[in-house]
């Protein structure tokens, strides 16, 4: 069953066309890798699908509902309750401890303080970083921060997880451990995952791969269709 769908999504930043008509279907429970070279529009697509950015044209539907026409209030509510997001940059709130960071989405959703704290500790433990629960991001290693960010993205048990280069700055053993854990947890909870990466080793954790190229889906999985298309015009 399709949970997320983009139809002809177009998005520009001023005169830069980031997405030039992207159509994809994401099946419920699938782990989908979105790959492609730097600047091809991966993060922009993720933000459109997660309802963070509103496309200039085209449709985004979630569970059959038109997300792109919803108000910002509705979309941000959806992001709090149904979606988990793991951004490429700037993950944790610097002033809060790891446990407080992870508990935050639950508190925002109205969960009680004690219950949120217990859940946060449980997730930190599952990701192997229980020992830094009371540390602030500045006192943690990059890998520990990344794991906390994963814990925070999963603590609300979202139906869809949007992960943008979740292992960007990590060494290969650390990123392997993190991805292994992320995929295991996602499968356990039947979470749909959109995994943005430019690394084939990371993409190999997914069930399927969609490649972008200059703001369009690359049908060959390699980018030449787009290159030729641009050429033919």
């Amino acid at each position, binding site marked *: 069953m399709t949970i997320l769908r983009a139809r002809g999504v177009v998005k520009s930043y001023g005169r830069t066309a980031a997405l030039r008509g992207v159509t994809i279907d994401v099946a419920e429970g699938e782990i989908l890798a979105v790959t492609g070279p730097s600047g091809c529009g991966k993060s922009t697509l993720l933000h459109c699908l997660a309802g963070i950015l509103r496309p200039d044209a085209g449709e985004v539907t979630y569970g059959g509902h038109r997300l792109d026409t919803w108000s910002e209030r509705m979309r941000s509510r959806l992001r709090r309750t149904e979606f988990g997001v793991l951004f490429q940059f700037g993950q944790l709130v610097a002033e809060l401890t790891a446990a407080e960071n992870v508990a935050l989405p639950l508190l925002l959703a109205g969960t009680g303080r004690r219950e949120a704290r217990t859940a946060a500790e449980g997730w930190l433990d599952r990701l192997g970083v229980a020992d830094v629960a009371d540390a602030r991001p500045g006192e943690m290693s990059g890998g520990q921060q990344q794991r906390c960010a994963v814990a925070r993205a999963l603590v609300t048990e979202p139906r869809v997880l949007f992960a943008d280069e979740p292992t960007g700055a990590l060494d290969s053993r650390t990123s*392997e451990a993190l*991805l*292994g854990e992320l*995929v*295991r947890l996602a499968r356990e909870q039947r979470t749909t995952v959109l995994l943005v990466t430019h690394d*084939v*080793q990371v*993409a*190999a*954790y*997914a069930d399927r*791969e969609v490649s972008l190229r200059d703001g369009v889906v690359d049908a*060959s*999985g*390699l*980018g*030449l269709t787009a*290159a*030729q298309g641009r*050429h033919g015009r």
Partner: protein
Amino acid sequence: MSTAHVLLGLLAGGPMHGYELKRSHDQRLPQAKPVAFGQVYATIGRLQRDGLVTTAGHDQEGGPERTSFEITEAGRKRLDDWLGETEPPAPYVTSTLFAKVAVAVLVSGADRARDYLVAQRAAHMERLRALTAVKTDPASSLGEVVAADYAILHLDADLRWVSNTLERVADLHREVHP
């Protein structure tokens, strides 16, 4: 790869029959090709001739008589020397993958090479996914994980080269069909 040294390594753990050697080889090096019986016996024959392996005994449990082999002192020494030698960085440009693309560009032009690369990338990605599944399976042994890692990193190198080559071939295509 040197089957002789691998067999010596397996015998370092204790005597084995030819069949056990084959099975143990295939188990320990799961991503390598299964070794043929004939090759095990031929290799053991050579190792015996060179005094690196000797027969440890014969037994006959109901079935045909079976000979078990054991590593000699000279065999241990040889194994130790081998493990101490570094390998010259392998000349991977001798691979069939590279040769095919080079020849395709040469004889049939960029389009043929591109079709081949597209198909090859898909095959590589599929293998990469399978190996990643092995790596993340908690039931996999250390040997399996180490072998999967080795293959994954080499496939990664191939895939990067495939992508670069596709870019270059696309540039060429644009020059030829402006």
